């Protein structure tokens, strides 16, 4: 923390501040969900006050309103939803973010989803940020987000029939970074998220997706390629609380040198969520003896008539695959690279993801 007096978020009333401080608990160290990442270290290193010079995100195309929580078209939505979508009563980082964020902004879509989808870029920032995203009924929106060291807190609500595509790019940074993302997905809406990460001193991504409406569709995929002493911890929870929804989660990771990758993927299916179709998969390849991978898929089902699967693997490169390529004249190092690139390419859907992961964009595809 800085030695300057801490300004408390001006847009919170005294009661909210009091409640936040009162409810905040430090999580138990070395226990889930902070088993492999030190919460103490994150708190000590995550010294990022709000930067007042930060500009609002740029938008490409019409059909979006972006403004401070206090702005005329935003303030009523902000009062209604900020700190309401995410349930952070026991998350000290969330409380810290809430109290320190001097300003927050909202992104509200208004473009009907049969018209061209507007795109909003949330730039990287090493400050404390609080963002509200509202996808209004039957509208669509695309978010491109960059993160590099900071305490960013996103709450997102996708109203019935809304569609959100969210691409998150996490480039190399020497900072400590904490990202919290909570998405509430309503009836017949869809949320598609792709997250691509490379090294950071310590990067923690908490992602909670609550399916609150029938027939919603959630598709989350991601990949990481970690080197040096990078530390990446992704905690994903998908909560099915309405019937007939679909969620697919797929993550592939390559971990080298002395890097550590932690992935916890949890699917929860409430009693009132029959006809759920939920699948989660995480595969990892370690490319060095010093690399560490901790992955745990979890499935908790209280409803009948659901189709679910989950799985996680960690292993090394397959020697038979390498031999096969080498017999075709592809040198050993290039063979390894090709196999790893292919493994990551399976979860990459656009050039920006390929570029941050340092893999070849799919140029030679026979088309």
């Amino acid at each position, binding site marked *: 923390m800085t030695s300057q007096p801490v300004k408390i978020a001006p847009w919170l009333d005294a009661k909210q501040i009091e409640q936040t401080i009162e409810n905040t608990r430090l999580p138990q160290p070395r226990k889930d969900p902070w088993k492999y990442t030190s919460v103490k270290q994150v708190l000590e290193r995550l010294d990022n006050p709000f930067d007042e010079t930060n500009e609002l995100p740029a938008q490409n195309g019409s059909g979006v309103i972006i403004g401070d929580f206090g702005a005329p078209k935003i303030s009523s939505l902000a009062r209604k939803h900020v700190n309401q979508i995410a349930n952070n009563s026991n998350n000290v980082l969330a409380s810290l973010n809430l109290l320190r964020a001097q300003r927050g902004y909202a992104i509200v879509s208004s473009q009907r989803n049969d018209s061209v989808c507007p795109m909003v870029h949330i730039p990287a920032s090493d400050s404390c940020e609080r963002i509200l995203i509202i996808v209004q009924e039957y509208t669509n929106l695309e978010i491109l987000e960059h993160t590099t060291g900071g305490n960013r807190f996103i709450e997102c609500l996708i109203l019935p029939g809304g569609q959100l595509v969210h691409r998150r790019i996490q480039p190399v940074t020497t900072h400590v970074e904490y990202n919290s993302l909570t998405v509430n997905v309503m009836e017949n809406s869809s949320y598609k998220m792709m997250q691509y990460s490379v090294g950071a001193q310590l990067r923690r991504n908490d992602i909670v997706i609550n399916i609150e409406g029938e027939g919603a569709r959630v598709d989350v995929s991601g990949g990481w390629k970690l080197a040096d002493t990078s530390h990446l911890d992704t905690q994903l929870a998908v909560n099915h609380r309405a019937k007939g929804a679909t969620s697919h989660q797929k993550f592939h990771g390559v971990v080298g040198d002395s890097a550590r990758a932690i992935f916890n993927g949890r699917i929860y299916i409430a009693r009132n969520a029959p006809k759920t179709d939920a699948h989660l998969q995480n595969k990892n390849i370690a490319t060095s003896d010093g690399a560490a991978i901790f992955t745990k898929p979890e499935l908790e089902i209280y409803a009948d008539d659901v189709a679910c699967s989950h799985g996680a693997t960690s292993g090394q490169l*397959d*020697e*038979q*695959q390498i*031999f*096969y*390529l*080498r*017999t*075709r*004249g*592809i*040198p*050993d190092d*290039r063979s390894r690279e*090709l*196999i790893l*690139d*292919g*493994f*990551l*390419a*399976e979860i990459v859907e656009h050039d920006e993801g390929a570029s941050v992961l340092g893999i*070849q964009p*799919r*140029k*030679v*595809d*026979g*088309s």
Partner: protein
Amino acid sequence: MSLLEVSDLHVRVADREILNGVNLEVNPGEIHAIMGPNGSGKSTLTNTIAGQEGYIVENGDLRLNGTNLVELEPEERSYAGLFLAFQYPVEIPGVTNMEFLKTAVDSHRKQRGETALSSVEFIKNMRALVTKLDFNPEFLKRGVNESFSGGEKKRNEILQMLCLDPKVALLDETDSGLDIDALQVVAKGINEFRDSNNAVVLVTHYQRLLNHVVPDYVHVLLNGTIVKSGDASLALDLERMGYAWLEQDSGP
């Protein structure tokens, strides 16, 4: 000079000696078939020639076009002109067949001091080849052998062989698991490939591929050595009589 020369080859895998003194000489323009029951050492022979790790050459010599293969890495053997069609082709998810083939061809070109082909040029060449072999062009866009049927995997091996244009092609049970149509396509590929400057060694269990690709020589591998060699009629004898009569001949 013969293209492939295997002399007195002894090979150990872990603690077991699998090949004990194999001799084989393959000259330009020839097709050889190696037959033998399961466990006789057929795959050990092909894997050893291709340079698979764990196959230890205890004694003997392996030469391709005069080059000693024993000390070479698998990719160097490929540059020397060797190709192995795998019995079980390996899946490489996420790498398209086109990308794989281009990387392989470019690696060979680089080795010869030539520049890489442009993607456009390469794709054009591949399309022509695929059409000639009656393959579905979609084949090229899919992941390498990824969810290919058994027949598609074997066709893909033939495609790679034609792309790389080796001096010696070893085909390890390329005919097994194929239906009649796929067998004909594979045979067509082999006949397309062969000319007076290269050679083909077919490792097979069955006579049926040999109806479409007629070998000049047939060898029987039994308990790690070649116990009998003959012309194409030997394959017909084996089909009729099995291997038991040879086993008695080669007894201790």
